[in-house]
């Protein structure tokens, strides 16, 4: 469902180029939850933005549901739902208006968009606040609206960039429940996080990103076997140390 092949993304810096993502390759099967783990600056967000068609790769290729992210970005965006913890809402719109707006942006005509918004309002139990402006909602209510926005076109792929970063316990639980439920429904989920316990809890497979490179990939059991360690945090630290010894940092100026 998701295929990244030797993806590279460079940004211009004084005196040359800085590689934020350096030759990244991985695959995510249909219905799988793939966790992209790594510290701040590892290249997780840049990878997800490339896979979502928001920025172009410098080289390499990626396909999402069969669509090329560089040449078919709009087709890619049609089949994915994108969510981050920092995702804001239009505070002067109501949840119902917001859902209808995003449904129209996904190509639905007005009556269809209205029906879809109504369905999501009921399904996510938002009737109570569906006609209040988003600016007056609580964090938990806003997260529910955000989940509705992600599901507005019922996409087969969900891309989530640190979706629980900075959230309180209740909102955090809401998001985790949503991811689990979406996984159960067969959606392909690409999740980036540096909360390793969340990854342990949710992900079918895990990829460790360090300095823009994938230093390890596999199920939790495979990674445990390979390192001889049980906790994901310990596994990551060991792999990161090995990776640093084996290769120079990808962020070096070329």
């Amino acid at each position, binding site marked *: 469902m998701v295929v990244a092949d030797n993806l590279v993304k460079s940004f211009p810096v004084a*005196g040359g180029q800085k590689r934020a993502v350096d030759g990244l390759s991985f695959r995510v099967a249909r219905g799988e939850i793939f966790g992209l783990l790594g510290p701040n600056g590892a290249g997780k967000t840049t990878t997800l933005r490339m896979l979502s068609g928001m*920025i172009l790769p410098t080289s390499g290729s990626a396909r999402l549901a069969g669509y090329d992210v560089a040449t078919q970005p709009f087709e890619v*965006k049609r089949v994915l739902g*994108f969510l*981050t913890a*920092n995702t*804001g809402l*239009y505070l002067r719109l109501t949840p119902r*208006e917001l859902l209808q707006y995003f449904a129209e942006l996904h190509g639905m005509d007005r009556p269809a968009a209205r029906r879809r918004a109504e369905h999501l309002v009921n399904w996510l139990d938002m009737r109570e606040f569906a006609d209040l402006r988003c600016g007056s909602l609580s964090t938990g209510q806003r997260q529910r609206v955000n989940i509705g926005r992600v599901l507005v076109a019922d996409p087969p792929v969900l891309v989530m960039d640190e979706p629980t970063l900075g959230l309180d316990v209740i909102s955090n639980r809401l998001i985790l429940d949503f991811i689990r439920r979406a996984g159960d429904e067969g959606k392909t989920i690409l999740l980036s996080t540096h909360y390793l316990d969340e990854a342990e809890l949710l992900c079918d497979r895990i990829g460790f990103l360090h300095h823009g490179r994938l230093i390890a990939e596999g199920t939790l059991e495979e990674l445990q076997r390979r390192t001889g360690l049980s906790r994901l945090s310990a596994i990551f630290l060991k792999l990161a140390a090995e990776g640093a010894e084996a290769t120079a940092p990808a962020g070096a100026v070329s």
Partner: protein
Amino acid sequence: MTFRRRVRTIYGKELVDLLRDRRTLIAMIVVPIFLYPVLMLGSLQAITVQTQALGQRAIIVAGLGGADGPQAASLAHLQHEYDRIRALEPSATPASKTPAASSEPAPGDAPAAAVEDSAASPPPLQLSWTPCASVEEIGQCVRDRSAHVGVVFEEALTFSPDRRNRIRILYDREEPRSATAHARLEDVIARVAARINDERREALRLPATYFDPFEVTATNLASPSSILGQILPLILVLMTITGAIYPAIDITAGERERGTLETILACPVPVIDLIVGKFLVVTTIAILGAALNLGSVCATVYFGGFNELIAVAGQGIPYGQLVLILLCLIPFAVLMSAIMMAVCSYARTFKEAQNYVTPVILAVLIPGGFAALPATELRGMMLVVPVGNMVLLTRELLIGAPVGTSELLTVLLSTTLYASAAVAVAAKVFGKESVVFADVESLRSTFDRRLIQPSPRPSLTMALVVTAVLFPAWFFLQSWLQSTRGAEDGLGALRRTFAAMPVMFVVVPALVAVYWKVDLRVAFGLGSARVGAWVGAVLLGMSSWIVARELVVFQHNWFGMSELAADSAAALERLLRDLSPVELVLMLGLIPAVCEEALFRGFLLGAMRSGVRKMTAIAASAAVFAVFHFILAKLPVTFLLGAMLGWVCWTTRSILPGVVVHFLHNSILTLSAAHREWFSFLPQPQEGAQDHLPAGVVLPAIAIFTAGCVLIGRSAPKATGGSAA
């Protein structure tokens, strides 16, 4: 989902979102509705009240001796006489007596507070006496402001016909109250003198004409330079800009700050649709703001009775022109909306955007403020000064002054050109990866040369901005060169103008291209062309001037030629005769051919190759080429010439065949004007310069022209991805 539907969806959402914002409503509706009434009614009423208060306040008079002395008695006598006159006036209300100076109450006295002055009757007079021992002490009292004026009667006041009363008034002109008191006393004395004169004349049964042999009536036909008439256009323009600021910030930096930009970019919507939708909303709000401001101005002027303060005497605001003013403000609103969006797109937060906007407003205030000066006129350079031209145009329309079609078109076309460049910049900035995702240093990545990536050809934004900057610069330079020393011979000015052309049209864009790492060979379309293209270019150049000449004759015969245009053409012909043929061919043939092809067909049209359709690109570059000639009468033919040269360049993927066409066209045309004797088949001046050429000349020319087009059309390079323009 179509482009139009997506834009409509985005437009509708953004408009609702903005109109629900209190700040937008305040900036767009509340401010215009309250600003003008407060500004005009409030300030004028305040001035009137203050003036009335000054006029009605008791005048403190310093004089020799006490309140019961002879000097005070003379003053009281004067006041008594004045009050008598006031009582005789039909609508007069007698003044109260002054406590110190009046020894006797005047008949019919009323409290000063109850006095309502009218324009027809003399105003009431209240005096208060300050005793002094000497004239020096009186002067000191006036200087230290303990008295408004000092009055010294040489002798006791009397109204005997054989006596002239000599009165000395001491006052301080720089002190408003003293100056007002002096004016009031002068007025009182003049009224008393006039009344006494009338009474004496009536007693002698002399006619009114006896002392007054003249009656002069002067009517001022000039537009009054009223303060309101001068500053209102500036306020109107500034309010249009203000209308664009808040929405521009809110939907760019505001969207990024709220974290919704990434969300929207993850939707299947092209960035261009997004920017168009947002840009239309900003423009709508700016235009709505302008319309509300205009409506508020007119309502205040109409209901407040300020017609005479704003417009030509006796005419009032030309309400019929309001629609025209609003239409003129549309390209201006587009320009400012695009500038604001481009600037704000760089900002990561609302506050940062506000900081970016401040210098833009200051930059706008300079030409706007200059244009608002009473002596600045809508002509010459001011026609193309951004913002300034719009302030002047609005002023002229607002006061009902006549505005020529060419002036109106020049202002609108130049503003439209600037607006197009600004829109292109806004679109480019908004869609820029480094700007959208502000974690990369967005502003630096655009201007820091080390971060700029090499590119084969200039971007459309770069080309439009360079062209938009060159347009007024070229206009100013030409005006300046023609007004500097030595310009009186005309020839010197012409030589300087063509000497400056390579710098403006080639060096400036080349420097910009080098800075932004653009391949100069591609940027200027210097690739080679096939043999057929060269032959075709020669055929076109040899014949196009005849076709162009016929078009000009056709235009003149059907639409007429203004006297000014005819004079300019005749003056140019005289100048050309003073040039040697070699200089003429170099100056008017070669230099424009190389420079104009490099800029308009190489740099501008080349930039449009990626992303703009062929016909649109050719028409747009031809329109810019025509506008750059600054002559309204030449607009149609220069546009067609530009379109032909654009087609040649687009087809051959090189500017070089176009240079040949342009060179031959200009050279033969100017030689035929300067040396008619070499072109015996042309009609001689005495035969009438507007005659068509004989069919024996025109038809072969059309045949050669067609052959040239066919050859060029068949000479298009086979590969589509060549290295040329």
